[in-house]
């Protein structure tokens, strides 16, 4: 069963090592980590310099050579595990322990933060609970397993049987300490340990599955995407927290870029009067010309954000973005809508990041919704009827939403009236461009009248922001 080339990977055989590295870099590229040939050469030198005996050191070294930004490490680690680590052979326990005993031991190990025990438990629980198809339990024989046989290891199945979330209280109690502070701190810590246990099980499952079905197969399918490529629309709760962390610096980045642009704009005409006055010191020779600061109004920005349920994940981020814009400019007015439109500028406190769940609060407290399903035409009509005069020749209009209008009238006329008055209008759409004309999406109709940008994940948001800050603001 040496289908996986991993077993050929030995310190001495340099050729397989080169191949292996090149394969590895190729896969990194497939997962969005674009390491070039010069990086690969560096990585090869690093392997020579570091040796391959110490895998953790090798991991650090390759990461230094091949990665270029934060947020890539998680994907890198998963692929590194697949390519440079060997799965431990699952040893069938002589007497399989009951799930209860396993949970008992897990709680104790988590409370003590006993790394060795946790690693061993991750492996053992996977062996006993996570095998499917021909893998695991009794099927764990020398019988050859092919890709077609559908055998594998499932961390999901393991965790479902183990239900470690329910152990949380026990772990916290096991960590000792008294008082509210201790228990609050310990709860947070216990959750972190639990997460890392979950990751350990997932890693083991991937490694063993790769053993059964070939490294390539798993590397292409079983690796989680980098956070900056997770779709806003399909994001899960734990992704959201991570993505929020990515969006914050983005907002700051936007702010610095805008500040730099404004400063540059100061270069302009020479202020004769002040130049002459300063020239007194040099006997009337105007050595140091003084530039007149150009008067320029703050950019006006009006944001229209779809807050309906279908774009919840996206709405969280549009709100972050709105916050960043409001922090930066005095004249930003933000409006939220579902099937009617209302101003939401006041929901943001300057300088404080929007709290999770803000969109829910807005829906409760502002009148952005009458019937609760999105209706762009109605929303645009309300805006055009009541707020049209806030748009002017210096205003940029930013619309955030998926343009799914539940087969109601898209009301192009209202949008047209808005874009006619504004200086620029841009639309960020969290859906892939290819589905803009499917189902109840009015995106392609709108896209003919407004510049629409596909903005599905943090990466695209970054691109859009750098484009927008040049054009719009």
């Amino acid at each position, binding site marked *: 069963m040496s289908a996986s080339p991993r077993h050929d990977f030995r310190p001495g055989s340099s050729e397989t090592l080169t191949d292996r590295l090149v394969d590895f870099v190729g896969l990194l590229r497939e997962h969005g980590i674009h390491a070039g040939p010069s990086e690969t050469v560096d990585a090869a030198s690093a392997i020579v310099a570091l040796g391959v005996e110490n895998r953790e050191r090798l991991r*650090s070294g390759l*990461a*230094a050579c091949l990665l270029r*930004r*934060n947020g890539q490490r998680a994907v890198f680690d998963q692929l590194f595990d697949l390519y440079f680590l060997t799965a431990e052979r699952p040893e069938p326990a002589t007497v399989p322990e009951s799930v209860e005993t396993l949970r008992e031991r897990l709680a104790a190990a988590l409370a003590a933060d006993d790394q060795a025990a946790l690693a061993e438990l991750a492996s053992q629980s996977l062996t006993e609970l996570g095998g499917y198809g021909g893998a695991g339990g009794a099927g764990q024989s020398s019988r050859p397993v092919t890709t077609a046989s559908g055998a594998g290891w499932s961390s999901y199945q393991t965790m479902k049987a183990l239900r470690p979330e329910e152990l949380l209280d026990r772990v916290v109690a096991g960590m000792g300490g008294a008082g509210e502070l201790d228990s*609050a701190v310990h709860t947070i810590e216990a959750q972190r340990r639990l997460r890392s246990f979950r990751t350990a099980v997932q890693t083991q499952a991937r490694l063993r599955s790769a053993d059964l079905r070939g490294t390539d197969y798993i590397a292409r399918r079983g690796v989680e995407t980098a956070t900056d490529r997770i779709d806003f629309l399909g994001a899960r709760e734990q992704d959201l927290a991570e993505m*929020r962390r990515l969006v914050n610096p983005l907002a700051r980045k936007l702010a610095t870029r805008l500040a730099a642009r404004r400063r540059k704009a100061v270069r302009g005409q020479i202020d004769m009067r002040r130049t002459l006055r300063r020239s007194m010191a040099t006997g009337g020779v105007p050595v140091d010309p003084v530039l007149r600061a150009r008067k320029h109004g703050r950019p006006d920005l009006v944001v229209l954000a779809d807050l309906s349920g279908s774009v919840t994940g996206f709405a969280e981020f549009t709100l972050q973005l709105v916050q960043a814009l409001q922090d930066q400019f005095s004249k930003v007015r933000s409006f939220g809508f579902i099937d009617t439109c209302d101003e939401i500028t006041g929901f943001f406190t300057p300088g*404080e*990041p929007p709290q999770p769940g803000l969109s829910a609060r807005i829906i409760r407290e502002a009148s952005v919704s009458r019937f609760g399903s999105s209706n762009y035409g109605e929303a645009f009509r309300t805006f055009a009827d009541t707020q049209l005069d806030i748009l002017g020749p210096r205003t940029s209009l930013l619309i955030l939403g998926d343009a799914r209008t539940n087969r109601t009238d898209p009301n192009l006329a209202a949008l047209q009236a808005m874009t006619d008055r504004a200086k620029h209008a841009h639309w960020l759409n969290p859906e892939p461009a290819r589905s803009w004309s499917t189902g109840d999406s009015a995106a392609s109709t709108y896209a003919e009248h407004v510049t629409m940008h596909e903005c599905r994940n943090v990466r695209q948001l*970054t691109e859009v922001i750098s484009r927008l800050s040049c054009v719009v603001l």
Partner: protein
Amino acid sequence: MSRFFDSVDQVARRLTDAGYLPSLDIATAVFLAGHLGKPLLIEGPAGVGKTELAKAVAAATEAELIRLQCYEGIDEARALYEWNHAKQLLRITAADSADWNRTRDHVFTEEFLLDRPLLAAIRNPDPTVLLIDELDKADVELEGLLLEVLGDFQVSIPELGTVTAVRKPFVIVTSNANRDLSEALKRRCLYLHIDYPTAELERAIVRMKVPELDEALGEPVVRVVGALRELPLRKAPSIAETVDWAKTLVALGARNLTNGVVRSTLGVLLKYQADHRIAVERLALSEPESDRR
């Protein structure tokens, strides 16, 4: 070429001796940067020890530390070199006017060249650590300038020609990622992202930096900071803040971490009011008598 370190273990040992406890990632990256002769680009949140690392590397290799602090608007004259105009003028006025030709030839010589950090680092015959600090604060133009310096370790001065490094400096570039650095620059560097340390490493750091801290307090201090970092804060406390907090606790003579102690010293760790509110709420720090708020 001179090697800075022989092995990863040696890096770890020497940095520790210099008062910097490196993680495996850090030690390996530092070793490789020295070994491959490439600049090391370090990113990470503020206060995790990016600049400290450069200082420690300089101390560990007994090299001279040359620092270029970047800021918005920093230009070639501040980063690379400048002509000493005043001295040139003096030379011209002092010279005999008949000798203009000779004077002219002598005005643009080494004598009138003012080294700025980049040139100084390249011309230094002794081991040098060049720290380019907070590059993300500088304008994009400076990056273009750095490409030549970091790629080939040389500087072109129109009047003098190209100055090539006598001895390659160990270059550390730090960035808080406020701005994305250009791909061209990143390609010339090794990359290291320093994150918050593991609890174990942080305990060791606290023990090293604040040895006066009550032995029993080290553990809970690090654990509270770790818990704070898990909260959705605007600015999570970093190592610098942990160390400050430990010092504060020593100064206060705190024996154990009670709600009151943590609450009253929270300002050392958290710098935003909103963060305070979140911490007080999530760590159950509110005092019973202040229930009305």
